[in-house]
C-alpha cells in the first residue's frame, strides 16, 4: 500500500512552474530519496507533502490525507526534519524534546529518544552549546518525537563533515529498522545510494529518472567500461574492434558482455606475454548517471 502517492503535481509561483507535473509513490517501510540540484523543485514538492505549501494542480495523498488541508490528525502522524535546526538555543536538549513531544498523542519517551540519537551526555546542555553534528542529531530526535508513521527529511546532512554524515546516516538507518517510512531530499549521490531503497532524480521541476540506486537511469544494463595501459606494445591481433586510444596510451572499450570480453582480452594478452597495466573494469557510477540526467556535465 502506498504511503505517499503523487500524481501530476504542479506548483506555479506567479506564472513560473517550480514543479511541472511530478508523479511518484512511496510504499510503507520504504526509504525514498528525491535527488536533484538546488532549484530542481524537490524542496517545493516535499513542502507540499508536509502541508507547508498549497499545490497548483494534481493529486496528492499522504497516509490517506490531503496534506494541503493540514488536518491535526495528519500532522500527528508525520515527522518533519527541517533543513536547518530551528529550535530555541536557550532550551536544553531534554526541554526541547519535552516541549515538542507533548504536542503529540503518541510521544516517544524523552530518555529513550536521547539515547537513540546518542545525546545522553548532552541531555541537560543548552542547545547553543551543541556542535553542528549534535544539533543535527537533536533535529532528527525532534522529527520522530511524535512516533510518526512517515518522516520527511529535507537535506538531512547538508553542510556536514564526513564523520557527522556517517553518524546521521546510521541514525536514519536505525529509524528504518523501526519500520518508519522515510522520504528524504538530498543533493548527495552517496547519501541516496547509502540510504534509499528507491531514488527519483528531479531536474527543472520534473522527475527525469526513478528506480533503485542500482538500476537508476539504465545503470544496470549500461555498458561496462574496460580500460588498461599498453606500454609501447602493439595492438596487433587485438580481438576487439571498437577501442579508444587516449594520448597517454590508455586504452578504453565498452562492452555489454564484460565476462566474455575480458576473457578474450586477457587471453590475447597472455598469449603474447603482455602485461595489461592498470587494468580496470567498471560500471558507470550513480554519480555519472546523475550528472548525465541533470545535465550538469554541460553546464558545469
Amino acid at each position, binding site marked *: 500500500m502506498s504511503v505517499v502517492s503523487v500524481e501530476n503535481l504542479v506548483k506555479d*509561483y*506567479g506564472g*513560473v*512552474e*517550480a514543479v*511541472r507535473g511530478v508523479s511518484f509513490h512511496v510504499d510503507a517501510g520504504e526509504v525514498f530519496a528525491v535527488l536533484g540540484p*538546488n*532549484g530542481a*523543485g524537490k*524542496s*517545493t514538492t516535499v513542502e507540499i507533502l*508536509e*502541508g*507547508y505549501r498549497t499545490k497548483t494542480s494534481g493529486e496528492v495523498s499522504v497516509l490517506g490525507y490531503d496534506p494541503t488541508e493540514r488536518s*491535526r*490528525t495528519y*500532522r*500527528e502522524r*508525520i515527522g*518533519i526534519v*527541517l533543513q*536547518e535546526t*530551528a*529550535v*530555541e538555543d*536557550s*532550551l536544553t536538549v531534554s*526541554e526541547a524534546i519535552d*516541549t*515538542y513531544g*507533548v*504536542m*503529540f*498523542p*503518541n510521544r516517544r519517551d524523552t530518555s529513550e529518544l536521547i539515547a537513540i540519537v546518542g545525546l545522553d551526555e548532552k541531555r541537560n546542555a543548552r542547545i547553543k552549546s551543541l556542535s553542528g553534528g549534535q544539533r543535527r542529531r537533536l533535529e532528527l530526535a*525532534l522529527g520522530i518525537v*511524535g512516533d510518526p508513521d512517515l518522516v520527511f527529511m529535507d537535506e538531512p546532512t547538508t553542510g556536514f563533515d564526513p564523520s557527522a554524515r556517517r553518524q546521521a546516516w546510521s541514525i536514519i538507518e536505525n529509524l528504518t529498522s523501526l519500520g518508519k517510512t522515510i522520504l528524504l531530499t538530498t543533493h548527495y549521490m552517496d547519501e541516496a545510494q547509502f540510504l534509499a531503497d528507491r531514488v527519483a532524480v528531479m531536474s*527543472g*521541476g520534473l522527475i527525469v529518472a526513478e528506480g533503485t540506486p542500482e538500476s537508476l537511469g539504465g545503470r544496470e544494463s549500461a555498458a561496462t567500461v574496460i580500460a588498461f595501459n599498453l606500454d609501447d606494445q602493439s595492438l596487433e591481433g587485438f580481438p576487439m574492434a571498437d577501442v579508444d586510444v587516449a594520448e597517454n596510451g590508455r586504452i578504453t572499450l565498452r562492452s555489454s558482455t564484460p565476462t566474455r570480453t575480458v576473457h578474450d582480452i586477457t587471453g590475447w594478452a597472455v598469449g603474447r606475454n603482455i602485461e595489461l597495466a592498470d587494468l580496470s573494469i567498471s560500471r558507470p557510477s550513480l554519480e555519472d548517471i546523475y550528472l548525465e540526467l541533470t545535465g550538469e556535465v554541460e553546464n558545469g
Partner: protein
Amino acid sequence: MADRPSTLTLLASQARYQNRIFFRSPAAAFFTLIFPLFIFIVFSLIFGNEYIDELGVNLSQYFGPAMAVFAAVSASYTNIAVTTAYQRDEGILKRVRGTPLPAGIYLWGKIISALFIAVISVSAMMAVGVAFYGIQIYAATLPAAIFTFLVGVACFASLGLLVAGLVNSGEAATAVTNATLLPLAFISGVFLVPSDDAPEWIDTVANVFPLKHFVVPFTDAFNPTYTGSPWQWNHLAYMALWGGVALVLGIRFFKWEPKASGGRKSRKDSKESKDRATA
C-alpha cells in the same frame, strides 16, 4: 493511538516554554523587568517626591503607576513582537507549524506568558513604590486598576502580534516597537507629567493611540483626588477596540516562515526554472 493532549496541558506547556525563553534572554528580561524600575528610581532621585499641584498627589504616586503601565506594555507589546519575529527568523515558527499544535494555542501561549511577565513586572514596580516611595494602594479602586491592567495587556499583546506579522525580521520588530512605544510614552504621560501648557495637538495625537487610554485610568486608580468612577469605560472600550482590530489583522497577516527562506528561496527556485524554461 493514545489520547490527544488536552488543550489545558498544551496551553500550560506553551506558556511555560515562552516564559523559559523570556527569562533566559538577558536583554528581554532586563528591558522589561529592570529598566522601568531603574527609570522610576532614577527619576525619583532627580526629581524627588514633591507634591505636584496639577496632579493633586506626590510625584511617585503618579509616576510609579505610570511606569508600571510602561512595564506592562514592554512585557506584552515589545516582548511579543520582538520574540515572535526572531522565532520566525530562526525557523522556529515553521517548525511549530509542522507539528499538531493548533495555531491558536501557540498564540494564546504567548499571550498568557506575556500576562504572567507583566504581572511580575508590575508587581515588582508597585512593591518597590509602596516600600520605598510611599505609594498608596486603595482597596476601593484596586479591582478597577487590575481590570484596566488586564484590558491593557490584552490590547498591547494583540498589537505585538500585529507588528510581528507586519515586519520581516526581528531587528525590524525591535525598531518598530521602540519607534512607536517611546514617542507615545512621552506624549501619553508615562515619562513626563502632562502639562496644561503643552500644545493641544500633542494631546490630540496621544488620544488617537491606545497608550494614553491605558495610562489615564490606571494612574487615576491610584489618585485619591480623582473623584470620578475608577471604571473608566470610555478608555477601556477604546483600548478594547484597538486590541480587537489588532487581533483580527494580526491573525490575518501572521507569517509562519521567514522571508529569507520562504520568499527568497521560492523566488530563486522559480527564477532557476525560468532560466531553464527559456534556455
